[in-house]
C-alpha cells in the first residue's frame, strides 16, 4: 500500500487518509459580488493536470489534521508535503 508522509505523524498507509482535492482554493472574499461565471469557476472548476498537483489530504485515522501535498498524478509519487498555511514548495517532477 502506498505510504503517505503526514507532516505530523510521518509515513502512514494510504487507507488512513482522506483526499480533499485541489489545495489553495480560497473561499471568495465577497461571494455575492461574483458573476455566475466566476461562481461556477469557484464551485465546479478545478485544475486537473497530468503531472505535479497541489492537493489536500486529511489524516483522518491518525492525527485528524489536514495538510497539503504535491503529488505527481502520473506516477502517484508524493513530491512534497507541507502544513496548512505554508507556501507550496518548489518541486521537480
Amino acid at each position, binding site marked *: *500500500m*502506498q505510504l503517505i508522509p503526514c507532516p505530523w505523524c510521518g509515513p502512514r498507509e*494510504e*487507507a488512513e487518509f*482522506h*483526499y480533499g*482535492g485541489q489545495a489553495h482554493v480560497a473561499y471568495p472574499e465577497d461571494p455575492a459580488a461574483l458573476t*455566475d*461565471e466566476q461562481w*461556477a*469557476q469557484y*464551485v*465546479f*472548476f*478545478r485544475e*486537473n*493536470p*497530468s503531472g505535479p*498537483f497541489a*492537493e489536500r489530504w486529511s489524516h483522518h485515522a491518525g492525527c485528524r489534521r489536514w495538510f497539503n501535498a504535491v*503529488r505527481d*498524478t*502520473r*506516477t*502517484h509519487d508524493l513530491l512534497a508535503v507541507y502544513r496548512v498555511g505554508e507556501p507550496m514548495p518548489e518541486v521537480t517532477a
Partner: protein
Amino acid sequence: MTSSAQPPGAHLPEHPDFLWDDPEPKSSYDVVVVGGGGHGLATAYYLAKVHGITNVAVLEKGWLAGGNMARNTTIIRSNYLWDESSGIYEHSLKLWEGLEDDLGYPILFDQRGVLNLAHSLQDVRDSVRRVNANRLNGIDAEWVDPAGVKEICPIVNTSPDVRYPVLGATYQPRAGIAKHDYVAWGYARAAHAMGVDLIQNCEVTGLETSGGRITAVETSRGRIAAGKVALCAAGHSSVLAKMVGLRLPLASHPLQALVSELLEPVHPTVVMSNAVHVYVSQAHKGELVMGAGIDSYNGYGQRGSFHIIEQQMSAALELFPVFARAHLLRTWAGIVDVSPDASPIVGLTPVGGLYLNCGWGTGGFKATPGVGDCFAHTIAHDKPHPFNEPFTLERFTTGALVDEHGAAAVAH
C-alpha cells in the same frame, strides 16, 4: 463430449487477421477526431455513414481502443433517472439492439438484464422512483423484491443476516453486456471501409487556432490541418482542452476492475450495487468481471490502490458467497473523467470548430453508439443533436445540472 458441454469460449466466432489499414497521416482533413477509443471510432463511423463526411482522421496516441474501451466492464443499460439522460442512454440502447447488423460484425451483445440492488430504505425509495421515471420515459424497468432477485440471479445472497441485506432491486431486462474489443473493431473496420484514416501512435501535443477558430492539430507525427476537431479523449480531456486555454469541470481518477479465472456459467445476469461498491457479470468466455468505485485521488497512471480492490472483493463475497473459491486473475485501472453532476459534457466549445465529448466518467461504454451518433450530428451541423443539447459546458454556469449520482451506480 456433447455440444452442451463445450469448453467456455468454444462458440465464439473465428476472428479475421486484418480489419483496417495503418496509414501515414495526410496533411489535412475535414474532421480530426482525437482519441481512438469507442467514442472516437463511433463518431467517425456515424460522420461517414450518416453525414457523408469521410475525409476524417481518428488520431490515437497509443493503439486503437487501448484505453478505457479495453478496461471497462462492458455493462449496457439505460435506466437513468432524468429525462435528459433517458434520452441519450435509451437512444444508445436502441442502437445497440441493431448494431451487429449495422456494423456487419459480431459484437456478442447479450441482453441478459441488469439488477441494481437496494440495501437501505432510502435505496428502496430512490430505486422505486427511478423505476417509475424510467417507465414514464418508455424504458423497461421493474421493481423486484428479494425473492424476485433470487429468481433472476440465484447466486445472490438475499438472506437478511448480511451486513447490508438486499431489500430489492430495479430490473431492466433489455440491459446487458457486449464484447468491448469487438465493438471497437467493428466500428474501426466499418469506418475504415468508408475511407476514414485510423492513425495510431499519434499523440496530439497542441491545438492551433486562428481568429477564434481551430485550424490544425500538432501531433507527434507532425502538423495536421483540420476544418473541425472533435475531442473524444476521456481521462485526458482536461489536458487537451487546456491547449486552447479551456478549463473543464472534470477530475481524472483511476477506476479499477478485475477478472477471475474462467468459470462455468454461474451468473446469468448483471448485478450492480451502488451501496457496497461492486458490479459483476460473467463474460461470454467465463471470467467474472467486476468493477469497483473510483480511487479518491486524481490520477493519470492507469493504476489504483489495492485497498479499493480489497473493499470491492469483500462486498462481492458478501453478496455472492459462491465466489469465495474463485481466483483473481488480474486487475487494472482506466482513467475516468468525472464531472460534478455525474453526467457527460457533449457539444460546442467557445473555440469555433472545436467540439467536446467528455465527462462520461465511469459509464461511457454503454453510450458508445448513442454518443457517436449524436456527436457526429453535432460536428456535421455545428449544432447539438436534441439528445446531447442538455449536456453543455454552460450548464455549470447556468445551474441546469443533470444530477445522475444515483443512477450512475459507481461511487464518485
